[in-house]
């Protein structure tokens, strides 16, 4: 197995172009598990830990651009106010040791339907910045996932960063697991309410072949919420929203939970996160 160690971003892109089957590795919390279990045996590993710019973050116009190599620990410590939904999701990733190493770039690279970052990125309307020696493109995360552990990323591309609105609305994230820490999601839900545009963003994790949006639920809520008065959300509206979120999921029965439970739990999470996000916006409880 070749071990490629580029020292800057240009070298990294060149290496990926020359070795399109190389598996990029940053925190290694996913890649190394697969290697240890002999589930994959890549021809080469592309070590991104020496690329200096990959763990930078800063504003880019109306957007916040966060390097793919920023760890969950730093998202929690440095960026909780700017990416509140993603920070909530970050707190549920693995153990403290895992959060010290694991990155959103790795989550996007694996593109698992259970990736904890994905629902929050979907709800926030994030862009994924993909780069190669051919150039750089920004793909809406809503178009990024194409199947279980598959994305639109081409073999010569690396994930450079992700971008979210610099001024977030009210964001919430909640995840159900069968123990109280260090657990893969049975299902998860993220919600974003933008008080200026009256846009609603949603994200569903671990309840379909890819991370999903609940578009019908989001459209319903965007149209019905009492944005101007900030009055209380009627119970019927919250219930309808929850039911639509549950219906948007495409879950299966597996060792972690049943499809019926996942739909049920998503409806509960949708109602609860709606109440919390609405309160965050100053809405009546």
């Amino acid at each position: 197995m070749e071990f490629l160690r580029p020292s800057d971003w240009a070298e990294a892109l060149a290496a990926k172009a020359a070795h399109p089957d190389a598996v990029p590795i940053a925190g290694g919390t996913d890649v190394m598990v697969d290697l240890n279990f002999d589930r994959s045996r890549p021809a080469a590993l592309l070590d991104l830990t020496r690329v200096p710019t990959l763990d930078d973050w800063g504003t880019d116009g109306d957007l916040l651009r966060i390097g793919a190599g920023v760890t969950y620990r730093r998202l929690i410590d440095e960026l909780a106010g700017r990416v509140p939904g993603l920070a909530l999701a970050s707190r549920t990733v693995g153990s403290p040791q895992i959060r010290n190493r694991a990155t959103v770039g790795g989550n996007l690279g694996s593109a698992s339907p259970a990736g904890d970052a994905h629902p929050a990125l979907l709800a926030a309307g994030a862009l994924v910045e993909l780069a190669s020696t051919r150039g750089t493109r920004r793909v809406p995360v809503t178009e990024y996932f194409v199947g279980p552990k598959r994305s639109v990323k081409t073999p010569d591309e690396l994930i450079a960063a992700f971008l979210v609105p610099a001024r977030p609305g009210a964001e919430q994230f909640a995840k159900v697991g069968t123990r109280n820490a260090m657990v893969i999601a049975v299902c998860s839900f993220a919600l974003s309410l933008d008080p200026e545009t009256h846009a609603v963003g949603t994200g569903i994790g671990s309840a379909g072949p890819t991370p999903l949006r609940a578009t019908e639920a989001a459209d319903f809520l965007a149209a019905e919420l009492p944005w101007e008065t900030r009055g209380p959300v009627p119970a019927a509206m919250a219930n309808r929203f929850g039911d639509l979120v549950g219906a948007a999921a495409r879950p299966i029965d597996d060792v972690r939970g049943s499809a019926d439970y996942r739909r049920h739990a998503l409806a509960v999470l949708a109602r609860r996160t709606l109440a919390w996000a609405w309160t965050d916006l100053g809405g009546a409880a």
Partner: protein
Amino acid sequence: MSTLTREPTTVADGVGTSAPRPDGILKVSGEFAYSSDLWADEMLWGATVRSPHPSAEVRAIDITGALAVPGVYAVLTADDVPGAKRYGLEVVDQPVLAVDEVRYEGEPVALVAADHPETARRAAARIKVEYAVRAPVTDPEEALSRGDLVRHVPVHRFASAGGDALTADVVVTGTYEVGMQDQAFLGPESGLAVPAEDGGVDLFVATQWLHVDQKQVAACLGLPPELVRLRLAGVGGAFGAREDLSMQVHASLLALHTGKPVKMVYGREESFFGHVHRHPARLEYEHGADRSGKLVYVKARIVLDGGAYTSSTPAVVANAATLGVGPYDVPTVVVDAYGVYTNNPPCGAMRGFGAVQACFAYESQMDKLAAAIGVDPVEVRRRNAMTTGSVMPTGQIVSGPAPVDELLALVRDRPLPPAATGDPRERPGGVANTTRGEAVVRGVGYAIGIKNVCFSEGFDDFSTARVRLSVLGGEPAVLVHTAAAEVGQGLVTVQAQIARTELGVSRVTVATADTSVGSAGSSSASRQTYMTGGAVRAACQAVRATVLARVGRTDALSLVDGKVVASDGSVVASLVDLLGEGDVEEIVEWRHKPTRPLDPETGQGDAHVQYAFAAHRAVVDVDTELGLVRVVEIATAQDVGKAVNPQAVVGQIQGGTAQGLGLAVMEEIQVVDGVIRNPSFTDYLIPTILDMPPMEVDVLERGDPDAPYGLRGVGEPPTISSTPAVVAAIRAATGLALTRVPVRPDHIALAP
């Protein structure tokens, strides 16, 4: 927090003190050498080919592909096993390597030794096994109806001669299920076999009972036992999972075949196939009582799935049957427990051993009875609590202390924990932000259990200790040598404490356990402090008698701080001087009081040595909409007779309670059609620090006059009653029946 009252001890780090573990710092700092850390020059690595099918004929095995891999030294199948082709703890039925058929997923079929573990694994993957797959039998009831019975233990006892009609004013019934729990030790099966010049083998291995391994390995190798020498390697947890053989014969075969040391280490996934698990069970119970809640009769039918081979199923069945009504006085008992063969993973020993499954059922029934007669759950238990002199369903009289009522009162009278503070870590769902109080309901539940200590049913249960008193560097020093396995429980500490107390010598070394001394029996059945502690004490007493005889006086003398002291406190001699005549060494084989077999028709007989009791109170917060549970606090009270090492006792109580909590809310090997679906720590979940709450521990010391220092086995009772206590608390919070463990979120959230 724990409370413990006892008399002061005069010997530093002696019996009754929390003497520190000799291996404690090494383990905490990561320097302790576990069996997976063993190394020998020129050693090879073994790998195992396992069946992917729960049931199949083995038509042919083609090893040519594996032999062609450079670096491979040997590929072995059943034909290469020189001695007995099968082994087993109680019944010799499990093939060393598959003979013509496989009966469970993961059954070993072939072995490879190579100069690198990766090479061995790759070569193993090139072995072609031709299977004719059969439909597996996976339903225990179907197995029972087919006659695939391991053992049926009836325990029938009637209040009046001729049998009673089972009638009572109040009758409650229930059917309960217990899922397959794994011991989930952290140190996977591993060891190193080194071929010896005399044609034998030296085997360094993590195990629970060196001599029973030695006997089985020697038989399979076709060697006399003295040519198979075992030495205990660092054990990373056991909990029953190391009672059966795993890689012992395999590594020895490869070592003798290649003439080189062979190391084998299972990976985490392989480990789930490499040891037996806790028996899944289905338990049908009927309790009859009078209107005050006093039990009149208990009728039960218990079916335990033993899986593909016998392992220790016969003893597990006997425990479930004989302990099947719990620590209660029950005039009439009709319990029938069955163990069956299926094509599911083999099940055998795990902490609690048959008593765990029964306790979940009978304690659930006691709560039902309490509800039926309208008293609180603790009260109905206290009205039926057994005491010293009570008669077990086997007819055995409980001779030692049985403070059941007191243990229940202790956990009931503990102050309840305060309401949650709002810290997200205290919520059901933990930091995953699933609730901020919505739908969270608190519940409190109680349970108490009973466990037999030591081996039962007439088994010749003994332990051997060799104790040598000598002078080292001008000071008296003691060497304690036994074959008892230190599996993390602290036996190595306890042996030294006993020697210090008995011989008045502070400098004590406990030799590594091996088979050059007589058997100590297994580190199981909560028996080692009782048995090997008893053997070490007896050997020390023999050493003391010999050395005091050298003084040549007839009055009472004692050993204090390396000196011989008369009853008036005057120093008569120094040990160093007395030992000038030579070292003193004694070897003692020590037995507990004999037990009797159970009558095969009625289950009557004095089958057990000692009974141990623990009570738990669990407080839980349940998110009733999502079905998520946070155990807020567990209070427990346990009678340990004598806390030989109080810190170790509390450690056992906390660890055992955590294991019972795991069974209550998360731990299950999910088996579908004989296939394990979650053989990983990603999907076989065990409690984390956010799942296991603070504990309030009361340790009682009601000495048992039959036991060394009055002690009572400690390891298993905490695991037994914590499961039903947690489930009772969830029931109290939800109002649901919850008849199966582990309770999963959908059992709560989607309950009809």
